[in-house]
């Protein structure tokens, strides 16, 4: 998991600072320290298992918004019926944002979008414990381009 590699960076010791009249005279030197590299491997600890029964859908949002459109609600009806038909089915609600704006705000926005979907499913009788809510913010775009069409595709909640 972790491999420590000794490297050289420099820190400084000021050895001597002497003022003689108006000329500032200094001497300084450098010494060693180290840097370690951490290699992270993916741990899928929180991924829900894939069962024989599954459902997937995507709902879309306006810029800086997390309310559901009537079209999104149509999409969610299908999700609700398959969850009711299969009581053991659990779902991941993964919120996303487009690339505009700041990354942390977009992470929060993606989370709010996923929560909006969860809230709606809950009002339709789905137990929240069957839902795993998470956000990737702008870090995992569906379409990697910088135009209105790509942005609209990226402001989404993936249900899977």
């Amino acid at each position, binding site marked *: 998991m*972790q*491999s*420590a590699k*000794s*490297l*050289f*960076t*420099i*820190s*400084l010791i*000021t050895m001597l600072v002497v003022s003689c009249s*108006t*000329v*500032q005279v*200094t*001497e*300084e*030197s*450098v010494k*060693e320290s180290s*840097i*370690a*590299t*951490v*290699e*992270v*491997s*993916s*741990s*899928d*600890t*929180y991924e*829900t298992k894939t069962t024989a029964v599954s459902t997937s859908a995507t709902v879309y949002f306006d810029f*800086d918004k997390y309310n559901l459109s009537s079209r999104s609600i149509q999409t969610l009806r299908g999700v609700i019926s398959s969850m009711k038909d299969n009581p053991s089915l*659990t779902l991941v609600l993964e919120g996303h944002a487009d*690339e*505009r*704006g*700041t*990354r*942390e*705000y977009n*992470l*929060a*926005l993606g*989370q*709010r979008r996923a*929560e909006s979907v*969860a809230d709606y499913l809950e009002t339709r009788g789905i137990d929240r*414990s069957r839902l795993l*809510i*998470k*956000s*990737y*913010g702008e*870090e*995992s775009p569906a379409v*990697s*381009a*910088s135009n209105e069409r790509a942005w609209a595709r990226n402001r989404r909640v993936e249900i899977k």
Partner: protein
Amino acid sequence: MKFLKYFLIIPLFLNAELVIEITKGSDNPYRIALIPFKGESISAKQANEIVKNDLIRSGEFYIFDEKSLIAYPTNEDDINYSDWRLINADYLLLTTVVESNSGIEAKYEIFDVRKKSKIRSSKVYGVTNNIRQLSHYVSDGIYEAITGIQGVASTKILYVSQSNDFDTPYKLYVADADGANEQLLVTSPEPIISPAWSPDSKKVAYVSFETGIANVYIQDISSGERQSIIKKRCLTCISNEQISSPSWSPNGKYLSLTLYQDGNAEIYIYDIKKRNLTRLTNHYSIDTESKWSPDGRKLMFTSGRSGSPQLYELDLRKLNKKPKRLTFEGNYNAKGSYLPGGEGIVFVHRSSDKFQIAIKYFEDNFVIPLTEAKMDESPSVSPNGNVIIYAINEQNNDILAGVTLSGAKFRLPSAKGQVREPAWSGYLK
């Protein structure tokens, strides 16, 4: 120590991942005649280039082209001040690099052309192959002698890169402030965002998605030892709670964080030693991107409570008070940082369809845009407050760029992959 030597030599012969390009000098610079480092050695040539670039990038200096130098004095007695007045030089620099078996030594002397006198005489010692860092210390000495402000050439930056590397596309790097000498801190198959330095620059905190959910990790730079902050969403829940946006308190004891309990982003303070959390905000809208004021008394954050993202400030001594709104201009002001003197803030500002880096001084009532690209983000302020490094998107490529308060501009394009999320260290001296 063969292993150690291998890594010492690498930075000299491999091209650095980031290559600095200075795109605009400052508007009213000190004019410097930098007499090239004496000697034909590679070290002298390197030192010359590094110091020259450091000084230009600082935004405070104009460096005469070598060809336009009217003389090449080798010592104080050789200097004819009136000659240098003629070409309007403010300062003259004499520099030398001496290599020996025991190491390397840079000597520099600074002369005030108007006062016709020497103002500084300095030596920097280092081990052989450390010419780069040695040169940065020379630059900082020159910067300080002339401007009276501590230089930042010897400080570091953190940044995240994303490459086509199949197994571990995401990497967290530390590099010199000019982008050279990059060293790998973390490699990961999942995104990394929001790197932040501890005030002593010995640790970093960042957000990693490695478990499938955003979480904050604290990592010791020299040992690689890591600590994650884990909070269960609920007793029966399958996942931990998402945590993000770390910012270190100036005394190094706390991190401010964003937690998503109850499904909404709220600001908390985490006591690193006691490992406990205190909630600071409670509002149904998004609260995130917290940042400590330099005196540790206030916390700035982005909130959607007015209907669009705006910056607010909490007085940590009066927590029952309503947060104070700091920005009113336009419908998007986010990810703020304080200037090190506390006299203003730097943030991402949306102006029509552009996201720019902007500054606002507390005594003024207006926003000053510092950049003009379309999607600028993640501003980070140098410890002396004179330079801002940020991320831009250029033809679908994320690269780093910088702007100084004196008007100079530079870019740090990457040879491979996307580079983003820069964070400037404190002083390392």
